[in-house]
C-alpha cells in the first residue's frame, strides 16, 4: 500500500475498515519492527560503526541521535534526542543531533488517534481497536510527517525503547568482550561500567555491538528513575540560538552559490501569462532572469539584488479560480449551508428537532477569516540539480513529499531527490506546504550545476501563503429550566486538510476530518446534540494553521456554549464543570477555576471568560481576564490548564503553552487576510500584526497528568484562547463579539 491509499483509508477513516479482530502491534513494537533491513541508517554506515535502529548511530568517533520530527520552534530537536539519551545514559554534549532523511521507518504513529473516527475521550475497546487499525495503516504506508501536535505521542514510547535497546546491546557487547555477566554491568555518562569499575566508552563498543544481535526486548525505565525527562532541563538548542550560532536553513552557504528571488502569480495556483523584464535585466548584481510555471525568478549575486530586480519585472497573470473579491468569499460561505455541500453530520445525540422546540431558543452566527502563517523566517531553500538528480536543503515537515513534489516538478523520480532538513524559524503549518520546494526545483533545474539559494521576500511570502480556513457557523440551541437542552452546531468552511492532501499528491474525496475538530468533540451533557460540517466550494485554497479546524470551530462552539449558559442564567465556569462528562476533563476545568480563584462576576469594568476545548487529544481550559479602559480593552491575565498525560519537558511545556495562548489571542484580536483582485491585501506584518509584547498578558500555566495517554501541546492551547477572550469581553462590557478579528468591533490597548 502506498501513500495514495493512505488518504482514503487512514486520514479520514471509514468505519468499515475498523471491523475485525486482528491483533495489532503496540507503539513500542515499532522499534522492533524497524530494526531489520529497513533501517535507513544501515546503508550509509561507516566502518566499525553500529546502528541499532533508525534513531541511533555510533561510530568509533561519535554518537549521533536522529530527530525524525522537524524542529519548527516547538523544541523537538531537543526533546527527541533527550528521550533516547535518557535511556542510554548519555549526557547533553555527548552526542550529535541529525534530522532524519525520508524513510517509511519514520512513519508517524502519533496520527493513529487523530485519524480514527472516535472522539479523544472515548477510550473504549472499540475506539482503541480502531486506533490500532489506523496505526497499522500508518505503518504500512510509512507516512513521515511532523504536525498535529503528534511528536510526543509518536515518540514517547518508541524513542525510549530505541534508547533502551541501544543501552542493553552495548552492555551485551561489553559483557562479551570482558567475559562478565550482563547483570553485573551498568551504564553512566556514555560508558559501560565493568564490575571492577573500568569504564568503556560507547564509541569503543560500536564495532563489537554491530556483531551481536540487538537486545530487542529491552524495556524503558520507569519515569521515577528519570534523570532529565520530566524535570526542568535546558533545551539543547537554546545556547546556540542565543549566541546567534545556530544556522537556520536561510543561513546556509555553499561554494559557488547564487541567490534567487521570485515573483509568483498572486492568484494562487494560476500560471504566468507573460512578463517584461527589460528593466530588471540591467540591474546591479543580476545574473539571469528565468520564467517558471507560475512566475518569474531572478538569479543574482545577493538576495537583495534578486529581490529588487524581481520587483522591477512586470507580469501578466492568469486570473484566479476563486472569487477575486473578499465579499464574494463570504457570500459563497453563506450559501454553503445546503445538502449539496454537506461534509458530514459528525455526531448526533438525542432528538435534536424536539430539543430545539423545548424552552427558550438561542441562535447565533459566528465568523472566522482567512489568516496567514508567516513564521519569521521566510520561505527559502537551497537547491542543486546535476545529472544525478537534485539535492535540496530546506526546513520542512514532510520529507517524503518534499522529494515527490521536487521530483514531479522537474521530471525526476522521488528517490533522485536528496533532502536535507534544516532548523526552521517557525512554521505554524506553513512548512507543510510546498511552494518554495516546487519553485526551487524549477529554478535549480534551469541553473544546473550551480547551488541556488532561494529566499522569498516577506511580501511574496504573504502573497503565496495558503491561508487558514475561512468559516461561518450558524448555531442553534435551547435552554429550559436552567439547563441546556439542545445544541445544533453547524458550520460551513473551506477544507484545510483536504487541501493539503491534494497538494501533497494524495487527494481525498472524504469529508474533511479537521472540520469536526472542536465541533463534534464537545464533552458537555447536552441531551440533544448535533454537529454538522458543510464544505464550501470554489474558494481560496486553505491549509493547516496552528490547531487547524479547532482554531475556528473551537471559537464558535465555546462562544455559543457561553451564550447558552448565560441564557440559562448559570455561571460560565460552574455550568461547564457541572456539565462536563469526562472526569479527567472536568479536572482540567476545576484546576483553572482554582488557579484563577473563579468566584463569579468581577464588576467595575472587569470581566472574565472561560473556554474549554480538546484538540489533538489534549483537553485545555483557559480563563482570560480583561479590563475596560478609556482607550479600549486590556487583556490582564490568562490562566491555563492542560492535561497531557505526562509533562515530558516542563520548561518547554510552559513556553509552548504560553506561545499557544499568545498565538490564539493575537490573531483573534488583530488579524485577517482578505482578497482583492485575486490577491491577499496584507503583505507585511504591519497589516497582519498578531501580538506584540505590549499587548501580552501574564500567563499562568499548569500541566496535568491524569490522561492515561501521553499527548502533545503545540497546538491545543490555541483554540480556547479566542472564545475565552470573547466571553471575557462579554462579561466586562455586555458586548458579544462573534467574529474575528475582534478589533473590527472593539478597541484593544
Amino acid at each position, binding site marked *: 500500500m502506498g501513500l495514495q491509499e493512505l488518504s482514503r483509508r487512514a486520514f479520514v477513516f471509514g468505519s468499515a475498515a475498523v471491523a475485525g479482530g486482528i491483533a495489532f502491534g503496540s507503539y513500542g513494537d515499532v522499534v522492533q519492527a524497524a530494526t531489520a533491513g529497513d533501517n535507513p541508517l544501515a546503508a550509509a554506515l561507516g566502518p566499525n560503526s553500529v546502528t541499532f535502529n533508525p534513531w541511533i548511530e555510533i561510530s568509533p568517533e561519535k554518537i549521533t541521535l536522529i530527530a525524525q520530527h522537524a*524542529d519548527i*520552534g*516547538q*523544541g523537538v530537536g531537543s526533546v527527541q534526542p533527550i528521550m533516547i539519551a535518557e535511556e542510554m545514559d548519555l549526557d547533553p554534549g555527548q552526542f550529535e543531533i541529525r534530522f532524519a532523511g525520508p524513510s517509511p521507518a519514520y512513519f508517524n504513529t502519533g496520527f493513529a488517534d487523530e485519524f480514527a473516527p472516535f472522539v479523544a475521550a472515548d477510550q473504549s475497546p472499540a475506539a482503541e481497536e480502531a486506533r490500532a487499525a489506523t496505526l497499522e495503516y500508518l505503518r504500512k504506508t510509512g507516512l513521515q510527517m511532523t504536525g498535529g501536535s503528534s511528536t510526543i505521542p509518536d515518540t514517547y514510547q518508541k524513542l525510549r525503547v530505541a534508547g533502551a535497546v541501544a543501552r542493553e546491546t552495548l552492555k551485551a557487547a561489553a559483557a562479551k568482550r570482558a567475559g562478565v555477566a550482563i547483570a553485573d554491568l551498568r551504564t553512566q555518562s556514555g560508558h559501560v561500567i565493568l564490575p571492577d569499575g573500568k569504564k568503556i566508552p560507547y564509541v569503543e563498543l560500536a564495532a563489537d555491538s554491530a556483531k551481536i544481535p540487538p537486545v530487542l526486548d529491552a524495556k524503558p525505565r520507569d519515569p521515577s528513575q528519570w534523570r532529565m525527562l520530566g524535570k526542568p532541563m*535546558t*533545551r539543547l*538548542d*537554546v*545556547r546556540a*540560538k*542565543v*549566541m*546567534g*550560532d*545556530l*544556522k*537556520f536553513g*536561510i*543561513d546556509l*552557504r555553499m561554494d559557488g552559490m547564487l*541567490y534567487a528571488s521570485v515573483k509568483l502569480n498572486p492568484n494562487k495556483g494560476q500560471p504566468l501569462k507573460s512578463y517584461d523584464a527589460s528593466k530588471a535585466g540591467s540591474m*546591479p*548584481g543580476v545574473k539571469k532572469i528565468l520564467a517558471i510555471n507560475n512566475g518569474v525568478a531572478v538569479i543574482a*549575486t*545577493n*538576495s*537583495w*539584488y534578486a*529581490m529588487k530586480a524581481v520587483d522591477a519585472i512586470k507580469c501578466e497573470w492568469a486570473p484566479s479560480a476563486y472569487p477575486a473579491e473578499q465579499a464574494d468569499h463570504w457570500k459563497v460561505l453563506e450559501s454553503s449551508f445546503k445538502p449539496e455541500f454537506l461534509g458530514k453530520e459528525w455526531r448526533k445525540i438525542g432528538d435534536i428537532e424536539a430539543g430545539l422546540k423545548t424552552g427558550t431558543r438561542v441562535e447565533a452566527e459566528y465568523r472566522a477569516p482567512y489568516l496567514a502563517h*508567516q*513564521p*519569521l*523566517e*521566510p520561505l527559502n531553500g537551497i537547491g542543486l540539480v546535476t545529472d544525478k538528480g537534485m539535492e535540496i536543503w530546506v526546513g520542512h515537515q514532510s520529507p517524503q513529499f518534499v522529494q515527490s513534489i521536487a521530483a514531479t516538478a522537474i521530471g525526476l523520480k522521488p528517490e533522485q531527490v536528496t533532502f536535507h532538513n534544516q532548523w526552521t*524559524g*517557525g512554521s505554524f503549518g506553513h512548512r507543510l506546504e510546498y511552494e518554495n520546494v516546487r519553485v526551487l526545483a524549477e529554478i535549480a533545474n534551469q541553473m544546473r550545476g550551480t547551488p541556488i539559494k532561494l*529566499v522569498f*521576500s*516577506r*511580501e511574496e511570502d504573504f502573497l503565496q501563503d495558503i491561508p487558514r480556513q475561512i468559516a461561518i457557523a450558524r448555531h442553534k440551541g435551547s435552554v429550559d429550566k436552567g439547563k441546556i437542552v439542545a445544541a445544533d452546531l453547524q458550520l460551513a468552511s473551506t477544507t484545510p486538510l483536504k487541501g493539503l492532501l491534494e497538494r501533497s499528491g494524495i487527494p481525498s474525496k472524504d469529508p474533511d476530518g479537521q472540520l469536526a475538530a472542536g465541533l463534534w468533540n464537545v464533552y458537555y451533557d447536552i441531551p440533544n446534540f448535533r454537529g454538522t460540517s458543510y464544505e464550501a466550494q470554489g474558494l481560496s485554497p486553505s491549509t493547516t494553521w496552528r490547531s487547524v479546524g479547532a482554531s475556528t470551530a473551537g471559537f464558535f462552539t465555546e462562544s455559543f456554549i457561553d451564550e447558552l449558559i448565560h441564557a440559562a442564567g448559570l455561571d460560565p465556569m460552574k455550568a461547564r464543570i457541572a456539565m462536563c462528562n469526562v472526569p479527567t476533563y472536568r479536572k482540567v476545568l476545576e484546576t483553572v477555576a482554582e488557579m484563577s480563584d473563579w468566584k463569579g462576576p468581577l464588576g467595575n469594568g472587569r470581566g472574565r471568560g472561560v473556554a474549554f476545548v480538546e484538540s489533538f487529544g489534549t483537553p485545555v481550559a483557559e480563563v482570560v481576564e480583561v479590563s475596560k479602559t478609556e482607550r479600549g480593552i486590556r487583556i490582564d491575565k490568562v490562566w491555563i490548564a492542560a492535561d497531557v498525560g505526562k509533562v515530558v519537558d516542563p*520548561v*518547554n511545556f510552559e*513556553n509552548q503553552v*504560553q*506561545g*499557544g*495562548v*499568545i*498565538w490564539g489571542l*493575537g490573531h483573534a484580536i488583530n488579524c485577517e487576510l482578505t482578497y482583492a483582485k485575486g490577491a491577499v491585501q496584507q503583505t*507585511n*506584518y*504591519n497589516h497582519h*500584526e*498578531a*501580538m*506584540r*509584547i*505590549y499587548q501580552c498578558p*501574564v500567563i499562568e500555566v499548569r500541566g496535568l497528568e491524569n490522561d492515561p495517554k501521553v499527548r502533545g501541546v503545540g497546538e491545543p492551547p490555541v483554540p480556547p484562547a479566542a472564545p475565552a477572550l470573547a466571553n471575557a469581553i462579554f462579561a466586562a462590557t455586555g458586548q458579544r463579539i462573534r467574529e474575528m478579528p475582534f478589533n473590527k468591533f472593539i478597541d484593544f490597548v
Partner: protein
Amino acid sequence: MIELTVNGAKRQVDVVPEMPLLWVLRDELGITSPKYGCGVAQCGACTVQIDGMAVRSCQAHIGEVAGKSVVTLEGLEKRDQHPVLQAWIEHQVPQCGYCQTGQIMQAISLLDLIAQPTDEDINEVMSGNLCRCGTYPRIRAAIHAAAAKKMAEK
C-alpha cells in the same frame, strides 16, 4: 569599494551604496545572526549596533554606514559572559529562535538606556521586535534578570 568596520575588523565590500547593511552582512560577509524578517523595520530581527546604537540593519544603506563601526551579536564583547545572553539562556527564552538575536540586541540597547526598566519601559522599547512563537513572557523575565545581573556586577 565601501569600507566599514564589522565586529572590530575592517571589511571592504563591492556593492551598490543603496544595499541595506543587512544584506551586506548576510550575503557578502556571511554574518548570519542579523535575520531577514520583513525588510521594512516591522519585525526587528535584523537589529545590530552602528556606532553603539541599536538600528534595523534592513533600513541602513551601506553607503551611509561607510567608515562606521558595526557590531552584530557575534561581535559582542565577552559574548559568553554577557549578562543579557546569560539571562536569555537561564530563562530559556527561544522557541524557534529566529527573532531572538534581534530581541537580544534591542534588549542590550534598552538596558544601556534604562538600567532598571519597568514592564512599561520594556513594552515601549521592545514592541518593535516581533516574535511569532510568543516568547514575550520570557523576554520580559530575562530583561529583568539581566538588569539585576548588571547591577550586581557594578
